[in-house]
């Protein structure tokens, strides 16, 4: 598997560290309530299909990335800088 880092270009999977669902970029407000926080911390979908995950290019430039990929075909559809994604959410 190869990931197209927006800064470094196409790199081998072993340079990257996997964090988990990109939901981590959408942290709820401190007073959002127990249910919202419970879902944010613990409840994850496990889709056979498209997922959005946080990866870090640890062995390269160090950038955090949002990788959209398919768990069935292993195709990587999109790679964006997490900082750009976060800015777009604001």
């Amino acid at each position, binding site marked *: 598997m190869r990931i197209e880092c927006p800064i470094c*270009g196409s790199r081998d999977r072993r*340079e990257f560290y996997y964090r988990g669902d990109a939901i981590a970029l959408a942290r709820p407000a401190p007073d959002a309530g127990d249910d919202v926080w419970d879902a944010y911390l613990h409840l994850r979908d496990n889709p056979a299909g498209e997922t959005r995950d946080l990866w870090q290019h640890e*062995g*390269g430039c*160090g950038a955090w990335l949002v990788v959209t990929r398919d768990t069935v075909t292993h195709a990587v559809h999109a790679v964006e800088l997490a900082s750009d994604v976060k800015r777009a959410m604001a």
Partner: protein
Amino acid sequence: MVELKAQTPFGELLPLHIGDMTVAARDLGQLTVLGVFDRAGLSKALEAAHGVALPEPLQSTAEGDAQCLWFGREEALLVGPTPDEALAKHAALVDVSDGWAVAELQGPGAEDVLARLAPVDLRDSVFEPGDILRSQLRDMPASITRTETGFLLLVYRSMAATLVQELRRAMEAVASRR
């Protein structure tokens, strides 16, 4: 009075000659990490003080004794001079001169040696003199630059001996097949 003698991080392990390839320690002078928070301002200040521009990703710049290496996202490494105070307005400056071990790999088999250690394409058709990248040599985080004469390899100082061991093994394998 005890006479203290400066040693490279590699001690007696380098230089290493195997086949027609060599690895030698390099003393580049002061190494300063620039944690960039104002790209345009820092590039101007760098040019004014040291004559080098802030490099684009995967590039390096050089002027006289000063070199500036791209070192990661919003990071550069100033090599050689003591950084001018004016730079501190545009970047966090950290002296890491003793934190990194620097070696240069030379010889006709150098590309083949690195092909055994790094998961990136370093052939001269895609990686030219002055080009730089951050990757891994086996499990070691490394900075790799192609110079006019070979490859400049930077790893954490604590991994200097491991770097020599990995290079030795790869150089022996490459030399035995030539």
